[in-house]
């Protein structure tokens, strides 16, 4: 099976800083793939490099058979990739509805009403807040909005950068539930970056571990959950062991 997204030997960075060193990663259609790693490992950079901002310095990004390495961001986003980025980046001075409309910029307007209804179905909170300005939403509401805004673009591949950051466990569960549902019911392909490694590995079909801009490990979600190194570095078990020692 050929990959929907294939990252091949990608290096990228900012000015003199090199954040990614020859990263290889594949995502197949219909998969949930997660990437875990410590702060500053380069996870967000990889996600943004896939979208062309910053562009890769070497290596290739191939999506759906097309080389998109040097393609301007807005064109990549018109080919079925959507991202809910780190920090959510909600348009603060625009209403929830306008944020969602912007999410649908790449989609023919005829779908808008049905898609909007679907988002309000997934996240009823957003419907209540429809005409509230983005900047005044709570953190959890902003996260729901960021995901819904990305989904309004009808992506084939959804990139989620730390959707659980700063959220109460109940909301995290809701969001992960939504991701699983979209994946199972509609075959949405998801690439998920998470600090919350335990939940992410349980949700994902496959997973990668990134350390200092390099992929150091990969396998099924279950494999990594059972891996001692992963447990020690990223999971609760590791911490308990050290604490008990």
């Amino acid at each position: 099976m050929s990959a929907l997204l294939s990252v091949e030997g990608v290096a990228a960075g900012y000015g003199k800083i090199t954040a990614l060193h020859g990263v290889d990663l594949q995502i197949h259609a219909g998969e949930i793939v997660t990437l875990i790693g410590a702060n500053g490992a380069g996870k967000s950079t990889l996600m943004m490099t896939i979208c062309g901002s910053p562009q890769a310095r070497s290596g290739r990004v191939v999506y759906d058979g097309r080389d998109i390495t040097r393609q301007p961001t807005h064109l990549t986003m018109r080919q079925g990739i959507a991202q809910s980025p780190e920090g959510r980046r909600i348009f603060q001075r625009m209403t929830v509805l306008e944020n969602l409309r912007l999410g649908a910029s790449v989609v023919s307007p005829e779908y808008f009403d049905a898609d909007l209804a679907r988002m309000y179905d997934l996240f009823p909170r957003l419907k209540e807040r429809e005409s509230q300005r983005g900047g005044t939403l709570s953190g959890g509401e902003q996260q729901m909005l960021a995901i819904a805004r990305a989904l309004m673009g009808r992506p084939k591949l959804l990139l989620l950068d730390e959707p659980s950051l700063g959220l109460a466990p109940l909301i995290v569960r809701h969001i992960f539930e939504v991701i699983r549902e979209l994946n199972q019911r509609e075959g949405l392909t998801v690439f998920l970056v998470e600090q919350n490694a335990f939940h992410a590995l349980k949700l994902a079909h496959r997973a990668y571990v990134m350390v200092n801009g390099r992929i150091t490990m990969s396998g099924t979600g279950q494999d990594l959950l059972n891996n001692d190194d992963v447990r020690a570095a990223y999971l609760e078990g590791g911490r308990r062991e050290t604490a008990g020692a």
Partner: protein
Amino acid sequence: MEYFIQQLINGLTLGSIYGLIAIGYTMVYGIIGMINFAHGDVFMIGSFIALTAFLLLTSLFGPAFLPVVLVLVLIITMLFCVAWGWSIEKIAYRPLRGSFRLAPLITAIGISIVLQNFVQISQGARVKPLPPQIQGGVTLMEGATGVVQLSWMHMIIIATTVVLMTGFSLLISRTSLGRAQRACEQDRKMAALLGIDVDRTISLTFVMGAALAAVAGFMFLLRYGVIDFYIGFLAGIKAFTAAVLGGIGSLPGAMLGGLLIGLIETFWSGYFPIEYKDVATFSILVVLLIFLPSGLLGKPEVEKV
């Protein structure tokens, strides 16, 4: 009393012209955080294109077709100014995007000087007159202290401004282009992540500002009848002041600021020594900004992070 009302009408007319120019400053500032110092000169170029086109077309059609000629002149002026605005952004600002903040400001001043000198050399330094084309009007009141005249020219300028402003507000608040512009104002990177062509959106912002400056240049020519290569500088500074006064980045603010500056200037000229009108205008600006640093309708900083 009559004198007062007459000055009010004159002030609103002048203010409309400033307001139309001010929108170009405020929109460009809003979207790329830069003051386009060449914008006043696009207005100046507009008035010269209008004059040239007008003389050409009246010699072709004769004076009988005045309304047709006026509409054609307006269209030609807008087309040329739009081309100017678009090229200026492309040549002088876009390559510098992402470099240090002052760089585009310096090229803006450079472009402004280039445009002024270009017109000065090609058109001469002396003022160019155009005899009044649209005369007459209605007398609103007659009293002991004088008459109040609402000329056709007043009406045309005010009506055009109202129509343009209404259309423009709708464009910004309702259309996908307007939404894209506001998105780019707030977060260009996110806008690109949603498939919005940021470069194109910025280009279109310059184009819109230039189109409005073209209208202002044309109306300025018709109303005041004298233009020279330097009018863009003063009108530009005042329109910029208007944009700051109204709250830079705010469209209604730009219009309001324009009207206020027009009124202050006209009333000062009407009641006090006219030589000091610009001093008065800018002094009031200084005082207002001390008490209202973000302008009258300036956007409050983000309420919640």
